[in-house]
């Protein structure tokens, strides 16, 4: 992106689980975390440099639409937030 003259320093990565966020920040080994495959710990390397894992409320979590079937209102809300709109309503 530097080629376009855009300098992105730290990309916020929004996650709705505080425990998972804490896990990315500390190097502590815990009995429950020792089974996690090593390749998933890649995020620990990245979270100190290129991106930053932050918390977001479940209501504002836009990736919800990709993981579970949602009721009508929530579905419409997230769909609009993601910029998926009806072309007939635009003009």
């Amino acid at each position, binding site marked *: 992106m530097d080629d376009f003259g855009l300098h992105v320093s730290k990309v916020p990565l929004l996650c709705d689980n505080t425990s998972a966020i804490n896990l990315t920040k500390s190097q502590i080994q815990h009995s429950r975390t020792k089974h996690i495959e090593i390749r998933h710990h890649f995020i620990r390397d990245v979270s100190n440099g290129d991106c930053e894992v932050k918390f977001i409320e479940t209501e504002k979590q836009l990736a919800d639409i990709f993981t*579970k079937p949602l009721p009508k209102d929530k579905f419409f809300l997230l769909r609009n937030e993601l910029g998926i709109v009806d072309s007939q309503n635009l003009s």
Partner: protein
Amino acid sequence: MSIKVLQTFEMENCKAVTTPMSTSYYMSIDEAGTAVEQTKYRGLIGFLLYLTASRPDIMFVVCLCARFQSSPRESHFKAAKRSLKYLKRTTFVGLWYPSHSPIHLVGYSDSDFVGCKLDRKRTSGTCHLLGSSLISWHNKRQACVALSMIETEYIAARSCCA
């Protein structure tokens, strides 16, 4: 394109629905159900997968239906056809990229709570937004059986930055 899909599956006059999938419906392997011709089912999945390139809203249901391609049943076909009913209602819906949006990259990562009861694997979903426009998204069933919610969210976060 979605009109063509509706014509191919003779669904032009179907009832339109507002969401691509019902919240109460749980998709199982359904061994007792009547088998559907595999070619037909795969054809439909192929059409829908093509559409996900511009329609991320049907991404979840298409990925879910695609898991049952090896032995499709009537119930799976019905669920896939429900997304066609949704497409009928939202034929002119698409991604909108405004010209004056701020350049600010944000990533979102999320996971579900044991979406696939068959093998206890969970699904992770991630998306990236540049300003207010969606630039990348993905939905994947996790490769390993996660033992806790923390682990799934952790894996989802990893797949978001990788």
